[in-house]
């Protein structure tokens, strides 16, 4: 296994074991700013881990970032790893990041669907859902981004267990979702949530389950516009942006709708690049450019969250 985070190859894809080993190295090497929190276990009993970046204080306002909820979207885990390393490397140098970490904590869940991710390495590279199974149900897996309480069971999710967008038997039925719900609810002071998917180059905000604009729609629209501008400056990649239901499609039971209804005003969903050719099979050579541009957009959202306390 990799010996340290500096010898780790950030421009390659990695297995679950390699990522979990890298997490341990990161926490060891940067123990003054990073810790590892075990927030639960997946359906197949794998650990669900969250990285906490903090410079002190208690119950500080916080920012949540998750990657890999759909396991075949390998570019998202790889982007999350690169961003985690960027945070520890840039703290004390990048003024926006440093100011953010002086006042807020950042939590990153790199592998939100560990069972599905392990399965993409062992059996089916194109697997999307988790691996839960229930007596009497012929097909395996629930789409974890349809299992949240907000708008659960509405249009844009499916009640057929064999569908790729199967919502599950009831809201938060899946341990991978329940673990996040419990953690964020108990913490109670999250101010922004960013859920990273791929692909199709979009930056979106609630709602997905309804065409109704959210209360601070104008603020989110302007912030998304500023974020995609910062992203485009890096490599010229164009993103479209807007609410999920008006930009992409109606989708129910999704992470960012739940977060918004929990009072997290700055809730965003990224659909990272595919450059129009590779879909989920983005070549590893595009990991670092993708992460660099995504970081600039996330940094923009962080700065806004820091400067607009609520």
């Amino acid at each position, binding site marked *: 296994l990799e010996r340290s985070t500096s010898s780790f*190859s950030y*421009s*390659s*894809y*990695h297995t679950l074991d390699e990522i979990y080993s890298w997490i341990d190295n990161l926490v060891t090497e940067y123990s003054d700013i990073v810790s590892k929190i075990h927030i639960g276990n997946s359906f197949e009993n794998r650990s669900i881990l969250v990285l906490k970046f903090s410079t002190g204080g208690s119950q500080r306002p916080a920012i949540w970032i998750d990657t890999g909820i759909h396991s075949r979207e390998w570019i998202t885990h790889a982007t999350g790893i690169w961003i985690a390393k960027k945070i520890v490397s840039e703290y004390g140098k990048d003024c926006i990041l440093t100011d953010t970490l002086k006042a807020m904590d950042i939590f990153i869940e790199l592998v939100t669907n560990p069972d599905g991710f392990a399965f993409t390495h*062992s*059996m*089916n*590279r*194109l697997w999307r859902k988790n691996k839960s199974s229930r007596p009497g149900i012929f*097909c395996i897996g629930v789409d974890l981004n349809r299992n949240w309480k907000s708008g659960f069971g509405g249009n844009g999710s499916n009640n057929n267990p*064999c569908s*790729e967008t199967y919502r599950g038997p009831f809201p938060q039925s899946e341990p991978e979702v329940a673990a996040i719900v419990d953690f964020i609810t108990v913490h109670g002071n999250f101010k922004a949530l960013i859920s990273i998917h791929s*692909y*199709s180059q979009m930056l979106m905000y609630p709602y997905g389950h309804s065409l109704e604009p959210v209360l601070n729609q104008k603020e989110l629209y302007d912030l998304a516009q500023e974020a995609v501008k910062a992203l485009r400056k890096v490599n010229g990649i164009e993103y479209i942006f807007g609410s999920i239901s008006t930009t*992409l*499609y109606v989708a129910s039971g999704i992470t960012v709708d739940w977060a918004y209804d929990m009072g997290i005003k700055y809730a965003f969903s990224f659909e990272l690049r595919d450059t*129009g*050719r*590779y*879909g*989920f*099979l983005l*070549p*590893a050579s595009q990991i670092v450019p993708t992460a660099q541009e995504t970081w600039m957009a996330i940094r923009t959202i962080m700065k806004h969250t820091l400067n607009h306390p609520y």
Partner: protein
Amino acid sequence: QMNFTGDQVLRILAKDEKELSLLRDLEGLKPQKVDFWRGPARPSLPVDMRVPFSELRDVKAYLDSHGLAYNIMIKDIQVLLDEEREAMAKSRR
């Protein structure tokens, strides 16, 4: 590891809502065969779907018969998967 030799990803630009619903129907016609990588959402957005090699002829005939223009975004998925796997092995070495 499942093998995806010969599977293709077709990119379809539906002109209107009617064409989008024809694509949605396809999912019902070919349950668990057609895998939408980008689902039918709105006319301005492309629809990408992975089609197993065994279903290619039927699906392309369906698209042609309904006048749905498409192009082949990925000609053989397994080729990209093999490259990805080789890149990971190389990085590990």
